[in-house]
């Protein structure tokens, strides 16, 4: 059973009174019942709350009030987004049973637009991973092929949208955690410009990189959701002081005259599957056909992205995750003194990948090593920004693969963290730059699984990025 209608169509039908939000929610809850036992995309289904909220939307329509652009559309939420009174685990034992006393700004905005929070989705613990296998609550499976991973860390949200359990979902992207699972599950996934979307209520992994982003089945649906969640938030000092970008109104403006660059270092490199690189060239040709000019471009510093990222992100994580100490909330393992309680709680509560990154980050910030590791990584970050800006001097948008391959099998990379890390090699550079980027499904590999094209744009370049994504989507059909 699938729900074919797009989010935009569903919202239009609910606003017009043609369909009830309650009925839409019930249909999606039925899909969850049918498919989630196998896929395990959800950690917590908010059936009662979703139905109650749907009834409010229906009442608004009956009273002649407009519930908003997401009227009645179920939205799945990655379980790093705080939801008042609803368990928020971050995929970790250390937060098992924790119910936040407040709600993330993005969730408030979704609800204010008539969207229905339908459940909390599975993820790699604290968003650290690329396959959703690092969840303390068991892995999520890829709806296209349950023997494969859905990607990560927002694998639950990608799978929920891919399987029709929710037309829309929110994920978070620190080094590719929206884009890479979107590519693996064959859906659209957006990493907005850093600061476009409020992080208030998003449980931090690496604060200077984390962004909330939409998953959807179409580029237009992703645009609607980004318009809803974007824009300045007084609760987040790093949020850009601008209203949400207008995307839908420009979506069909076409790509005629746009200059598109295919990033050599992220496309033609060793480790990128040939069929994936070929798909990027195909997408480039499709854009050319639509009126764009397409060339290869070199962005040299991107080759250092992975190394810099694995110092900066763990460094910030080591600090962000210090608060899980057993004192105030979440798991507590008692000890003879405070330090023992801290250590035993963290030992029992964190999984191996989280511990690995905390140790790595702590080391990178230590006295005597700070400049060599964290300092150098920050300088590399500056170089990456500089090289991207140089490229954007000649190109409106850039293209590359989203991931080096199609979805891999469960357990294929769990034994080798470095190999797992390489899965984000194409997405990390734009994260470090703070730029916008998104995945658009384009074709399939020999295994029949989806391939994703990554469209990259400069800071606040979402409008042009979405136009290009729309053209690629059109060409893919």
């Amino acid at each position, binding site marked *: 059973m699938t729900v074919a209608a797009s989010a935009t169509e569903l919202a239009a039908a609910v606003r017009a009174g043609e369909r009830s939000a309650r009925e839409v929610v019930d249909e999606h809850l039925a899909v969850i019942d049918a498919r989630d036992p196998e896929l395990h995309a959800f950690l917590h289904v908010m059936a009662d709350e979703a139905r109650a909220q749907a009834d409010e939307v229906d009442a608004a329509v009956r009273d002649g009030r407009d519930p908003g652009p997401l009227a009645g559309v179920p939205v799945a939420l990655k379980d790093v*987004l*705080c939801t008042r009174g609803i368990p928020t685990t971050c995929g970790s034992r250390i937060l098992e049973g924790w119910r936040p006393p407040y709600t993330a700004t993005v969730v408030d905005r979704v609800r204010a637009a008539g969207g229905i929070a339908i459940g909390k989705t599975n993820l790699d613990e604290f968003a650290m991973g690329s396959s959703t296998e690092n969840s303390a609550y068991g892995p999520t499976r890829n709806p296209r092929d349950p023997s494969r991973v859905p990607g990560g860390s927002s694998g639950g949200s990608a799978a929920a949208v891919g399987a029709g359990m929710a037309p829309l979902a929110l994920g978070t992207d620190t080094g590719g955690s929206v884009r890479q699972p979107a590519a693996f599950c064959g859906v659209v996934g957006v990493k907005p410009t850093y600061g476009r979307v409020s992080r208030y209520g998003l449980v931090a992994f690496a604060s200077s990189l984390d962004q909330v982003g939409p998953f959807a089945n179409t580029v237009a649906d992703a645009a609607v959701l980004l318009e809803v969640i974007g824009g300045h938030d007084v609760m*987040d000092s790093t949020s850009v002081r601008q209203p949400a970008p207008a995307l839908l109104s420009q979506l069909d403006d076409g790509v005629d005259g746009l200059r598109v660059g295919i990033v050599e270092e992220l496309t033609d490199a060793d480790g990128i599957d040939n069929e994936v690189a070929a798909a990027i060239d195909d997408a480039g040709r499709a854009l050319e056909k639509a009126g764009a000019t397409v060339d290869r471009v070199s962005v040299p510093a991107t080759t250092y992205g992975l190394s810099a990222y694995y110092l900066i992100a763990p460094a910030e994580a080591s*600090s962000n995750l210090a*608060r899980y100490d057993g004192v105030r909330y979440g798991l507590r393992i008692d000890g003879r003194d405070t330090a023992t309680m801290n250590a035993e709680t963290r030992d029992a509560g964190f999984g191996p990948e989280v511990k690995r990154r905390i140790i790595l980050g702590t080391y990178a910030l230590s006295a005597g090593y700070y400049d060599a590791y964290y300092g150098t990584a920050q300088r590399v970050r500056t170089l990456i920004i500089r090289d991207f800006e140089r490229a954007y001097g000649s190109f409106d948008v850039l293209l590359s693969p989203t991931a080096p391959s199609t979805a891999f099998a469960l357990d294929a990379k769990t034994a080798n963290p470095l190999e797992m890390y390489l899965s984000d090699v194409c997405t990390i550079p734009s994260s470090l730059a703070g730029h916008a980027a998104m995945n658009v499904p384009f074709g399939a590999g020999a295994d029949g699984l989806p391939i994703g094209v990554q469209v990259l744009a400069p800071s606040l370049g979402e409008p042009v990025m979405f136009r290009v994504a729309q053209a690629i989507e059109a060409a893919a059909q």
Partner: protein
Amino acid sequence: MSTTATATGWETVVGLEVHCELATVTKLFCGCANTFGAEPNTNICPVCLGLPGSLPVLNERAVEFALRVGEALHCDVPERSIFARKNYFYPDMPKDYQISQYDTPICVDGWLEVDGTRVGIERAHMEEDTGKTLHVGGGGRIHEADHSLVDYNRAGLPLMEIVSRPDIRDAEQARAYVSELRGLLEAIGVSDVKMEEGSLRVDANVSLRPAGAEEFGTKVEVKNMNSLRSLGHALDYEVTRQRELLEAGERIAQETRHWDEDGGVTSSLRSKEEAFDYRYFPEPDLVPVAPDAEMRARVQSSMPELPAARRARLVADWGIAEQDARVLLSTPGLGEYAEAAVAAGAAPKDVVNWCTGDLLGYLNESGLAVGALPLAPDGLAELIELVADGTLSRPLAKDVLAECLLEPKRPREVVDERGIAQVSDEGELGDLLDGILAAHPEDVAEYRAGDEKARKKKNGFFMGEAMKATKGSGNPQLLARLLKERLGG
């Protein structure tokens, strides 16, 4: 008492870190109230509790206060300063890191003049306060405690840490520095500066070096001094401890020591090896602090007169002693009170005498703030006028003041009600004296026969009788003159 370098062969070198709680309405990074003494864990929210997903938002008012501190201490305020995370595990620190400033503080490189000497200010930076831990059982000591409770009301309150250069040379100067700094922070309205309530906390870095040496000795950080008195005692103790070690040929261990007020000793808290590696890095949740020209101008134009300038002005304009000006300005609000009384027409010296005498005594005794005094400044001016025009003697005026401080009455009202105006009628007082002299012929004879000492004694006796007869309201100067005339002085 501190001992000078030449006397002992050692020079004391002290640098002070003063933590001052800023008196903003709300906390540094959230909207919770900045109050003292509320029920535990009532002024808290997701942000100051550091709940997962919460983010800090900088209180603009705290930045203004920091700029005031910078102005008052003649500091440079760089275009941009940034916040950093100071990472260490402590249960009263909700995020297990403190948002502070590290290599780019908001204020750098200033000075404070203390008794004619400039003490350098290395930096002053903003940071958030921690919560408070209460150890239950075991007499409140951490190691014997049964369990601990944490109150996060204080977590996230705005602090400024003001770090002096190692320019201070003894305990006395350290106390004078803190006292001057406290007056300054109070005058510019950024802090309540109450050491007892913890809104002003002082840590000291102390070392000794041979007199005349250039190189600094190994420094020891001393913490937990809760008053100016304990600062003085702790420094004296620590200097003596270090000198005895050095003179015995031992080395000073670089460490943090705790001042034990009851025991009057410092004891080792942690050694250099046990010191935390704070792993500072730029706080990614906040943007740089970049006060714009408009804010800087607003702060500059709203700076009040600073205590040193004010003292100098009062000394010059009122002709009072430096020490009197210091006493006057060391009580919050008393300087303003005196200036208002002078503005109401009273002679400055009289105003200062009353303010630093009876009024200050009353304030100390009653614990009242100047603003709560029942007698307004122009009331004091009225009292001074009543003395000047001879209506009241000074002792009578003291009584009248005491009454005006008990209930809101004007001095003239009290005089009228009690009919205690001074008697200055020459005829009346002359008749009175004639009667007294006639009633005590032996005393008159003894006066006339006596030497200087005896005469003085008898004079006092006659004056006393006259005051007794007038119930204290006889004009003493007039009585003295009339008596002298009658005794053929």
